[in-house]
């Protein structure tokens, strides 16, 4: 298909109608698994454009949510033709909202963008106890642990979670990034994380830097 560039652009522009039209035509053309993989990559490139537009202030959080949904729709359409050829993952992230906090909008945006960037993400969900993170890290040995929280009460919970990883002897195995409304550099140092962000696109870039 010669339309891959067009697909990337349409996704970057969040032109839902156009993205769905291109993909439906593409699937109807009976593509090979290799071609289908290229379509997936074109969508991922589109997500990169979305991330860039977010960083330059053209898009905002609502647009990232829309982009995540659009990407999910795109992958659904492509599923029948992608086949079993699984793409190589660039790294693994264990992700969750820390205990005491029920918010997950930011976490879900980060997950969508990290997956689009090629990470394998294990999302534990909201209000997750320290042990849930410790157990998952023991099980899957991720490169990165992502801790999310919106309320100020999440900051102590982040600290407790990181302390929990230390006590289990796992802290040196992983990089830890914290994200959400109340985090900043001082908080990052206070809780003992390696990096912080209030911006999902930037967070994904930091993670990419860690697994290079």
């Amino acid at each position, binding site marked *: 298909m010669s339309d891959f560039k067009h697909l990337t652009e349409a996704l970057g522009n969040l032109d839902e109608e156009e993205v769905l039209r291109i993909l439906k035509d593409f699937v109807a053309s009976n593509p090979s698994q290799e071609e289908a993989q290229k379509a997936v990559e074109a969508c991922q490139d589109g997500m990169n454009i979305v991330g860039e537009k977010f960083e330059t202030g*053209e898009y905002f959080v609502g*647009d990232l949510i829309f982009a995540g949904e659009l990407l999910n729709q795109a992958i659904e359409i492509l599923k029948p033709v992608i086949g079993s050829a699984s793409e190589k993952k660039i790294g693994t992230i264990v992700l969750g909202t820390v205990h005491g906090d029920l918010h997950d909008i930011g976490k879900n945006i980060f997950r969508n963008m990290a997956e689009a960037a090629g990470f394998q993400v294990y999302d534990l969900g909201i209000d997750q106890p320290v042990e849930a993170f410790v157990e998952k890290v023991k099980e899957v040995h991720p490169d990165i642990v992502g801790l999310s929280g919106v309320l100020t009460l999440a900051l102590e919970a982040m600290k407790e979670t990181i302390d929990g990883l230390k006590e289990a002897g796992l802290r040196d195995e992983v990089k830890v990034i914290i994200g959400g409304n109340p985090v900043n550099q001082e908080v990052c140092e206070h809780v003992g994380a390696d990096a912080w962000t209030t911006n999902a696109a930037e967070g994904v870039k930091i993670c990419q830097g860690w697994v290079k």
Partner: protein
Amino acid sequence: MNDVKALQEERISIYHDVYDNKVPKRVPVGISLPFEFVAQYGGLNLAQAQWNPSIVEETADKLCQKVYSDTCVFSGSLRFPSFYELMKSQSFVMASNGFIQHPEVVGMMPEDYDYLIEKPYDCILERVLPRQYKALDAADPINSAISLTKSVLAYNNDFMESGMIVGKLTEKYGYYPGNLFSGGFSEAPFDFIADQLRGFKGISMDIRRIPDKLKEACEAVYPIVFKKGLPAQISNYGQVFLPLHMPTFMREKDFENLYWPTFKRMLDEYASMGIHCSIFCEDDWTRYLDYLYDLPTDTVLMFEYGDPKIIKGKLGKKHIITGLYPIVNLKTKSEKECVDEVKRYIDILAPQGKYIFGFDKQPLLLNDINLENLCAVAETVRDYAVYTNPGDTAGIEFKKEEYKVEPSRKLESKYYKTWDQYKALNPNVSEFGKDKLSNLEDAVFQYLVYLLM
């Protein structure tokens, strides 16, 4: 006059000066700690204490002695588990730490827009509330009615219990008798649809997929949120509190088209009646400061993030500014750093009045801050933020005659009866019952809409 009364008079005068466009004697210190924080300070189990609001009285009293503020240090709570639990709420639930919060849940589907636009209050009661409150089950009407009745009783009881504590402490320590929630509470029309009806994800889809319907829906819910916020008494010294949520997550063109028109009209309509508003600008509103300037004079703007210099420069002559001082500093910085920093904020925000000291947000739990730092900051504001020109005119004066709005849609629903409608259905009712029955109608309206705010 005893010391407490004298102190209360001073506090009343500094707050009233701010609201009357005068430079006060000193900057009012508006610090309030929520129920959950106070319960933990007293070593109480948070989940248990919230079922028994009176239990925090003693510990709230101790905090009033420890922390300086010109308004009551104990703010009460917006969320008690009793009335949510009885209604099987999915909108407000208790997390593992006992803190009640609002998770991302959906109360309205895209296909409900047409009905919401046609009959907003009917749609909310018939479709939205039963999705968010599972005790409302059309297949089990009697148990639904019983659950609702119990929930209303719990709602009245728990707010009365915590309100009584605030009242007692206000008299005991001579606080300014007026806190954030004393003058009415509501939401912007767009936020009302976003938060509990469509959810963050749903609204983000609707903005791009069906903006025209969303715009009409904001118009449709306008009479509901407008009525919800109306204070019982109109005063120059009370404000309707509106926490604003979605704007900074939107593109400006969507904000301008979908969010702003009905919100602006709401504040203009209140202003035309002499009603003021206090709005919480969640997140960083830097790119919307020109819009905020256009709001009615003397709107209390509580900021979370942003550059205090730019905010004061653009808005300080017209509006009353509060917030901005970062609550996380109280956790991550030393006492000296916190005190030095608050002086910097005061030097920028206090000149020429129209400023009340406040944090960018309340601390939620005891561990969120170092309490000693909070005390040091509060006392610094009290002693440092003193004016040399009290009584001077602060800036632009509010004149309610300047605000005119086109009449908006009225609240019309078979589930809300005006006195005339009630009388038509019950011709034998005594006129003596008018006030009581109208007040009951409004009390139920207030409760039902509160469930979605």
